[in-house]
């Protein structure tokens, strides 16, 4: 990847990604969108009048924090130790927050689809930069939740000893995901450095 740099003619940020890099980010962003898509939608209500009313009010949301640790981290409780207040907040905000995260992830997918057609040149306007920053954070939070990372130094590679290596080391996938996670952090840094 050639890091982001500002095009002085139109102010967009331009980077160049290899095909594997494009495919990787596109796949991960699409997974975040798919993961949150159900929560971003209104539940199906049979009565059309009730459904229309529900849609116009624009509220809804889960009764409690999600059991999937990745979704729980992306849509966390707004109050610590106050389940009622957290539930009320969730009812007013969860759907729209999930919908914005899905829209950001899809904007990333769309920009990468254009980049694929442009030989890997990725060009982002101001709004797309904001979608990228948020989606990169959501992807990294999801990877960390999947790997069970809860403290600053808690990475599988540092915890495991390789005394009993087998034909397929079960940590291979985790180690690969850590590389992806670190690389996505570097992409975020190159974006931020152009925004200063």
């Amino acid at each position, binding site marked *: 990847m050639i890091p982001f740099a500002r095009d002085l003619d139109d102010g967009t940020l331009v980077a160049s990604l290899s095909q594997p890099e494009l495919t990787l980010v596109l796949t991960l962003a699409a997974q975040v969108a798919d993961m949150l898509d159900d929560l971003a939608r209104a539940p199906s209500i049979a009565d059309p009048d009730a459904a229309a009313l529900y849609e116009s009010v624009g509220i809804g949301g889960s009764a409690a924090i999600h059991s999937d640790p990745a979704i729980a981290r*992306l*849509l966390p409780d707004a109050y610590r130790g106050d389940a009622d207040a957290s539930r009320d*907040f969730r009812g007013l905000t969860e759907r729209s927050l999930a919908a914005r995260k899905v829209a950001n992830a899809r904007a990333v997918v769309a920009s990468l689809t254009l980049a694929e057609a442009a030989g890997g040149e990725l060009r982002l306007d101001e709004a797309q930069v904001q979608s990228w920053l*948020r989606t990169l954070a*959501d992807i990294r939070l999801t990877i960390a939740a999947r790997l069970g990372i809860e403290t600053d130094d808690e990475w599988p590679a540092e915890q495991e000893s390789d005394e009993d290596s087998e034909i397929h080391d079960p940590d291979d996938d985790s180690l690969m995901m850590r590389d992806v996670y670190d690389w996505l952090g570097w992409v975020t840094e190159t974006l931020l450095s152009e*925004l200063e």
Partner: protein
Amino acid sequence: MTQTIESTEITEQTVLDSGWITLVWNDPVNLMSYVSYIFRSYFGFSREEADKRMLQVHNDGRAVVATGPREEMERHVEAMHDFGLWATVQKADA
């Protein structure tokens, strides 16, 4: 007389309403540069102030980033969740 009472009520209401804070909590994922960027771009903090609060989050595990009415603090928390930061609302004296 009436005016005095009204004014007292407004003052009390403001005091009660302002007693809420927005807290941002440390997490092992979000980059320090990203957290500082969010504090500057969203809250309008200077670089110095943003870095100070970001380091507070990093070193102390959390930092107060806003104080005010409950509804306003809830809007801030939703915006922080939008960025992927872990934020909560609570009463200032809790």
